[in-house]
């Protein structure tokens, strides 16, 4: 699946201000039965978005205007903890989420975001608080990856990202293709490594 490059994106931001939002909540198991990546938009936060009869729960933020069209989420810490299921990230992207801002992310989820063009921003508590307030006002914000800034009506904040991650997001690059440039180097490493460890050969 081609990755949409991330340059400068504007959109609404929705707040989910709870810690430890796990991947079972983000993408319940009912939606993990397929062998492709499609159809996961419906599964996103399914049990929060829909009641037992399948009707939208009006009290849930992503069912309200303008956040039903949110491009960004601001959440509590340790977002994406639990299972390694990448379906959580695919579902977020299919719903239209381009970036998530949180005090911290679970490790596997953070890496899964990078592999799918979803910008995960680990932000200072101050920035998270400011964006959570901004989200409530229902106005748009802009995230510029080149300058590493988040702009809102009430001010701007910077954020950190590794150079490599930034480059890959900006270009929408396929990581496998990039690594295979070093194929000879990997093969030489493997020969040396296994040669020194007869019990693994």
């Amino acid at each position, binding site marked *: 699946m081609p990755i949409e490059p991330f340059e400068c994106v504007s959109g609404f931001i929705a707040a989910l*201000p*709870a*810690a*430890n939002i*796990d991947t*079972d*909540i983000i993408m*319940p*198991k009912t939606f*993990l*039965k*397929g*062998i*492709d*990546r499609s159809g996961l938009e419906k599964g996103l936060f399914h*049990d929060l978005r829909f009641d*037992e009869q399948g009707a939208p729960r009006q009290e849930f933020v992503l069912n309200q205007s303008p956040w039903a069209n949110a491009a960004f989420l601001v959440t*509590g*810490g*340790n977002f994406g*903890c*639990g*299972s*390694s*299921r*990448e379906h959580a*990230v695919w579902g977020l992207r299919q719903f239209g989420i381009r970036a998530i801002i949180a005090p*911290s992310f*679970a*490790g*596997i*989820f953070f*890496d*899964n975001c990078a*592999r*799918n063009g979803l910008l995960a921003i680990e932000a200072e508590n101050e920035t998270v608080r400011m964006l959570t307030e901004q989200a409530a006002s229902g106005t748009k914000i802009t995230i510029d990856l080149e300058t590493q800034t988040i702009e809102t009506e009430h001010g701007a904040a910077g954020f950190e990202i*590794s*150079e*490599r991650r930034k480059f890959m997001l900006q270009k929408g690059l396929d*990581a*496998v*293709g990039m*690594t*295979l440039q*070093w*194929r000879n*180097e*990997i093969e030489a*490493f*493997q020969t040396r*490594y296994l040669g020194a*460890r*007869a*019990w*693994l050969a």
Partner: protein
Amino acid sequence: MQFLHNTARFPPAIQTARCVFFWGFMAAFTTLYDKLVDRHTVRSLDAEGRELLLYVDRTVLNEYTSPQAFTGLRDAGRPVFRPASALGVIDHVNSTRPERISSPDAQSDDIQMAYFVRNCRDFGIELFDLYHRQQGIEHVVMPELGLVLPGLVIAAGDSHTTTYGAFGALGFGIGTSDIEHFLATQTLVYRRLRNMKLSVSGTLPTGVTAKDVIMAIIRKIGADGAQGHAVEFTGSAISALSIEGRMTICNMAVECGARGALIAPDEKTFAYLAEKPRAPKGDALKAALEDWRALRTDDGAAFDTCVEINASDIEPMVTWGTSPDQAAPISDSIPDPGLEASPARRKDAERALGYMGLLPGTRLQDIRIDHAFIGSCTNARMEDLRAAAAVVKGRKVAVGVDAIVVPGSREVRRMAEAEGIDRIFREAGFEWREPGCSMCLAMNDDVIAPGKRCASSTNRNFEGRQGAGSRTHLMSPAMVAAAAVSGHLCDVRKLEAHHAN
């Protein structure tokens, strides 16, 4: 977190002194984690050596997180770099009911299992399918074959791959894109973690198990307490644990955010491996042992974070909420969220109690259950089944409780049957199942109904984990057994054990 002795919290003067002291010896004093990363580094990807291309020795694949990785390879026309480094195991979606597994169409009728069989065949990967005599939960199968060896890096599409740290192997979970990356390149783009040392000193009280230790640790440091870290477990209480107990500890380290968990290999590790069919033998073993004995953190190596726990303070633990850190000793009552200092944590606790249908102040031992589940990659090995059977022997499952035992693998199932453990469970009223992940994540037909409550030897008590609206209490297998025969959560130490042997 005030209880962490983080170097960042020292006054600047002390911190500088400490850094200078260690700076000159950095190359000489290295943690076990950094040794493993160093020996697997193909190339650095940034100037600081934080991001690197990591050579990965082995993987284990399952039918539910791998399909899109294989489709990616097919679409790009890429082969698997080293097919012999991967093993496929069906475990997540299969039924564990013996009658369903014996159906010849059970595998071909399921889209994920059928595609997995095709992928393993087309890409030359060994597969333990539904009918294979070694089938089981991936993290039970890999160690029992002897495929998890000290010093290896094993990355797999399941977060509980941290289990392999029990052998001094660096195991960690990856997403599907990274499975594809590994299969195509034998490597991963990897970010070096910080080092955390978690010492458990002293001796565990009678009736307290490895599961209680890791649950007490998670409660203490929080569900994100080890985030960004590789954790090395040390101390006399860890050394005293069996290899299976160590697997339980490393397995659940991911529940406090650890992306790698390690226990330095010792003579117990080597003795465990000596009996395993695919572990090195003869001269190969001799060469391996020389290497493995050097796999330990150097004296004087610096850790970014250190946590100490006294084993004698630990009691049998149970969770009361919907995050693994919402736990308490069984003798306690449900805490009052109103006493929680942080407003965010108070809100989380209130929501959790609402979901769990519990009130503050209720004694944990008064919570009645509808289901008892003994299984999962955390606790479905021989020792776990023996410990649970010792509690169950001569007793009956309480009226109104549905109790099942799902052995971790066919191998475990056979061994348990040879010891007569299956009979003890069956006579007590437990169902004796075929292996799989089963009710741990309810991706098969082992689903708990909304509002029903389960005592579970598993690893996650998230909302909806065992079925939409289901309520999970995590605990050790012996504690599940005690709850099953009592009908409510219960301190296993209050029941007299009847040893299975």
